[in-house]
């Protein structure tokens, strides 16, 4: 068994170096495709984070009647906080609303000051886990005695959800399409490398090598190409990381900073897995066509 693994690894290593040009072509293709794939993943991840952020910004605003007592308001806030759809409830008093208004419109201060009473209502600002729950929460609020009216943003929410849905589906479709193209190109390049050594495979068959002895050196070689390609790609990504993060931060200004770091770790795993996986798959498929007879 050890002799077999040793043999396969040695053959794979020799095979890689003796067919330098083909190995170089396969590795270069691998790097190019993996860079393309990881670039796309980074972009889509950024898009996803942005969309999540936008979704969390959806707020239901309920204006409260002036008669509502602080106890009524606190009770309502507590019951809202208990709803599974709600992430956060902020109570805005009449005074706070006035301050906010003045802060935003300093020019209107004279008008406001000329009034004897504060015309702005108190309100509850409710953040949702999922914008799709907007209607549930809004309906619940409308039936509360303390609530005067609920700001109707249903149309806006619907439009936003449609746009987000299209962006997500489009992103996934592009990723899948590019992924398949990458798979196809790499498998074909590896196939070329294997075909150029058809003689070797034929000789092995004729002298009575078992399928495993023929297959595994090529599979190890494919894994080696994948590993090398992934390694180079990861180095390129690490070198370019600073620029990528700066670019993303500039592009998606609203993003929380941690997003970039998690991309790094997952991406390295994805690149490694894809590289080695496709290398092995490509070799397996290519050699298989010689073994089935």
């Amino acid at each position, binding site marked *: 068994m050890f*002799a*077999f693994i040793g*043999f396969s690894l040695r053959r794979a290593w020799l095979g890689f170096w*003796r067919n330098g040009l083909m190995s170089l072509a396969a590795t270069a293709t691998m790097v190019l495709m993996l860079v393309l794939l990881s670039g796309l993943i980074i972009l889509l991840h950024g898009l996803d984070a942005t969309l999540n952020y936008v979704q969390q910004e959806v707020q239901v605003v309920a204006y409260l009647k002036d008669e509502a007592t602080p106890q009524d308001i606190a009770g309502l806030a507590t019951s809202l906080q208990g709803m599974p759809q709600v992430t956060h409830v902020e109570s805005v008093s009449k005074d706070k609303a006035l301050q906010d208004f003045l802060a935003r419109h300093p020019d209107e201060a004279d008008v406001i000051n000329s009034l004897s009473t504060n015309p702005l209502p108190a309100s509850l600002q409710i953040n949702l886990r999922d914008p799709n729950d907007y209607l549930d929460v809004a309906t619940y609020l409308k039936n509360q005695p303390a609530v005067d009216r609920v700001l109707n943003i249903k149309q806006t929410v619907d439009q936003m959800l449609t746009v987000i849905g299209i962006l997500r589906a489009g992103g996934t479709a592009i990723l899948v399409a590019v992924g398949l193209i990458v798979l196809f190109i790499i498998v074909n390049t590896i196939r070329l490398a294997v075909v150029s050594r058809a*003689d*070797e495979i*034929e*000789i*092995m*068959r*004729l*002298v*009575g*090598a*078992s*399928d495993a*002895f*023929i297959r595994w050196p090529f599979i190890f070689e494919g894994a080696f190409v994948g590993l090398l390609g992934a390694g180079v790609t990861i180095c390129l990504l690490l070198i370019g990381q600073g620029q990528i993060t700066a670019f993303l931060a500039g592009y998606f200004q609203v993003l929380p900073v941690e997003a970039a770091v998690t991309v790094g770790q997952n991406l390295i795993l994805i690149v490694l897995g894809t590289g080695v996986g496709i290398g092995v798959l490509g070799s397996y498929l290519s050699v298989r066509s010689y073994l089935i*007879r």
Partner: protein
Amino acid sequence: MQGVTKSYPNGRVALRGVDLTIPEGDFVFLVGPSGAGKSTVIKLLIRDELPTKGAVLLDGRDLGRLKRREVPKIRRKIGIVFQDFKLLPNKTVRDNVGFALEVTGARRREIDPAVDRVLRVVGLTGQADQLPSQLSGGEQQRTAIARALVHNPRLFIADEPTGNLDPMISWEIIQLLLRINELGVTVLMATHNAEVVTAVRKRVVALENGRIVRDQVGAAYHRED
């Protein structure tokens, strides 16, 4: 071979109802024009192809009923050489021969003595560390013969082994095959080389259009009436 018919997917019928028995230790020339079915006979014997009808038995085993994983074991009982030698260009003579054992999982300490032994048989001990490109045609074919012998095969198949060699060298190769036969190995040689076949006077099986048209012991290349 019992009642073997072989037709290829493209519709060409290569063999029609061929019956052929080769006893152990025999030396057989397989002759006939191109396309007569010589290559197909060889492909059936090494189970590179399966018969459309009939059965091919080797050492009492029906090759058509072998399991996939048994095929390599059967092939190790057969040594085969071709017109174009099929040597690996970047391996030395020694490594080319040893490769045949290496790919069957043999250990280094078993490989080295076996390789030395067959290199002595074919007379290439002095060229063991050269690459195929540094050898003459005859030496390359002898390397291929050594590789085919290194498993101690029971059956030795030579497909036009002298096709690329000049007459002098061809004779050397034939002498080598006769010696191998004397060591007790069954030899089947497909050839166009009339001079050699006629001179050696061994069993001659002639194929034409996929049928055996002559099977004569001690015969010449052409029919002698």
